[in-house]
């Protein structure tokens, strides 16, 4: 096992080797029902409450294809610049696993619905074209909970409990061609690809593609070859790398690990590996005693899918703006720099801002909150900004309250904090925490009078034309009102009282 300590540095690894990547992304479609049966797909139901004879693999039950899932697959394929098969079939991938009730997965094998496309991604101002090998339809498995043992993980458990609600939810598996020539940017390109794919899936409206909920899952394959060598090296497959940041880290770690092994004269084993979020390393999966043999064959319970060209063209007409084009448009609309736009993209906040603007906020205010307070909170919690428990509409409401003068920035931050803490909508937080700006001019007047009386020196300077000490008076007022006053209004009133305005 390679420990982090004796890993070769990233720079050294790249001075001898070229990385070659392959990314396999599974997207859970947001259809109302499962791939082959009419069971609901809604997240979070009671265990085994969204099952039927078909998805439970009961004897005699049969599958029927979900038309909307096929439509989504075609739209994804088109958005990825793929060819859409004129005729394709489902196949059975046979292997025994308790999460999979039929002990085969209904998938596609040598006849995927979409093939041979590409997706352009931008890294450091440069565009990379990632080739798409195929996008195919398949079904998700059930979920097991491992009971007993020390860790609650699969190894060492006493037994497992199975819930098949997720079993049969439509998946689209998107496989890239080998990504070559990425060099030191490989980890960033991998991350940018997954991010771009996620944005595309969301823009298509076929899935929310929330990685933290497992709606989008990534397997990252990596191999190294010495500079100048044509032939690919042996690859490792790191399974379930389920955040953008993890994709980047996993690729980086594997580059270093492979380079270390190869430089030490070792050989890379073709194996699956597990990524560990905590320290960014990967470890080997169980070694298989013998090569898996999935015994694929055409699914005899389903008939071929042969999308008519008319249907395909009709679906092409429904494609949304490509995310990269859309970003350029938004950047122009918001009037911000490349750097600022890139920060928004990196923070994964573009859609949230669009939605916040749609909910009535100015784009400046929306950007300010998502990139400031909320990005900070997300960072502290170690989640994507969009995973925070606050909606764009709620952020827009906070912005509206600030604009109306009912909140100042400091109070607004507290309101956001309250919403994130689950205390309710912005208005409920304002109410419960008593965070209204003090706008009662009487109460404010008294506080101002008090401050003026207490700071004669400052008053004298101000009246002599030196406005510097106004801040001290404002500070005193804010202190008295426990921050609940609108600072701009306080300043106005002080200057008015002192006859300076």
């Amino acid at each position: 096992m390679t420990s982090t300590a004796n890993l070769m540095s990233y720079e050294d690894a790249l001075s001898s080797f070229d990385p070659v990547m392959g990314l396999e992304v599974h997207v859970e479609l947001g259809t109302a029902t499962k791939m082959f049966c009419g069971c609901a797909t809604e997240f979070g139901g009671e265990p085994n409450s969204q099952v039927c004879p078909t998805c439970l693999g009961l004897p005699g039950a049969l599958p029927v294809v979900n038309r909307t899932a096929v439509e989504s697959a075609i739209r994804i394929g088109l958005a990825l610049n793929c060819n859409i098969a004129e005729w394709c079939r489902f196949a059975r991938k046979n292997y025994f696993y308790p999460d999979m009730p039929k002990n085969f997965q209904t998938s596609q094998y040598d006849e995927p619905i979409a093939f041979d496309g590409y997706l352009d991604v931008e890294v450091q101002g440069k565009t990379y074209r990632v080739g798409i090998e195929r996008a195919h339809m398949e079904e998700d498995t059930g979920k097991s909970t491992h009971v007993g043992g020390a860790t609650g993980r699969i190894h060492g458990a006493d037994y497992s409990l199975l819930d098949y609600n997720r079993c049969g939810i439509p998946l689209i598996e998107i496989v890239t061609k080998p990504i070559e020539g990425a060099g030191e940017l490989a980890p960033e390109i991998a991350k940018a690809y997954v991010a771009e794919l996620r944005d595309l899936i969301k823009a298509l409206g076929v899935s929310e593609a929330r990685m933290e909920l497992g709606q989008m899952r990534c397997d990252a394959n990596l191999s190294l070859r010495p500079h100048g060598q044509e032939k690919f090296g042996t690859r490792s497959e790191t399974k379930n790398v389920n955040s953008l940041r993890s994709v980047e880290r996993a690729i980086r770690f594997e580059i270093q690990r492979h380079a270390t092994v190869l430089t030490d004269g070792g050989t890379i084993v073709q194996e699956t590996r597990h990524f560990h979020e905590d320290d960014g390393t990967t470890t080997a999966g169980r070694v298989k005693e013998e090569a898996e043999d999935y015994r694929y064959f055409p699914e005899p319970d389903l008939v071929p899918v042969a999308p008519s060209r008319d249907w395909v063209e009709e679906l092409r007409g429904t494609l949304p703006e490509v995310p990269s084009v859309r970003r350029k448009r938004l950047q122009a609309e918001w009037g911000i720099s490349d750097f600022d736009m890139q920060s928004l993209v990196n923070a994964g906040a573009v859609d949230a801002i669009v939605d916040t603007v749609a909910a009535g906020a100015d784009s400046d205010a929306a950007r300010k909150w998502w990139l400031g307070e909320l990005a900070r909170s997300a960072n502290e919690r170690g989640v994507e900004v969009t995973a925070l428990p606050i909606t764009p509409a709620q952020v827009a409401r906070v912005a509206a309250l600030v604009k109306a003068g009912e909140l100042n920035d400091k109070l607004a931050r507290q309101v956001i904090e309250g919403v994130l803490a689950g205390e309710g909508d912005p208005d409920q937080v304002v109410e419960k925490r008593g965070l209204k700006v003090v706008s009662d001019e009487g109460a404010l007047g008294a506080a101002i009078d008090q401050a003026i009386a207490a700071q004669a020196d400052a008053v004298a300077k101000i009246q002599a034309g030196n406005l510097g000490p106004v801040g001290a008076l404002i500070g005193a007022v804010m202190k008295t009102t426990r921050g609940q006053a609108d600072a701009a209004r306080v300043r106005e009133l002080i200057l008015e009282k002192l006859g300076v305005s």
Partner: protein
Amino acid sequence: MPGITREEVAHLARLSRLELGAEELDHLATQLDDIIGAVARVGEVAADDIPPTSHPLPLTNVMRPDEIRPGLTPEQALSGAPAAEDQRFRVPRILGEEQ
């Protein structure tokens, strides 16, 4: 056509999740060898230009609308379970990995 070996039969048994006894393995190896020898004749007639038939009917595009249909209650789903706990199927510990 080459005969099937006892090792191959053992490998097939593992792939098929059948814990065959030694005697059964021997017996099956002999029988499978006979059967495979007989069915290998399919190689005699079917030329490259013959398309395979996987379905007896030339149907395509059988799809259903994306509409929820009532399924089973959890009680019905679990009614045949050899063991259940917390409204889930209870199964022995799982060694392998999802693929």
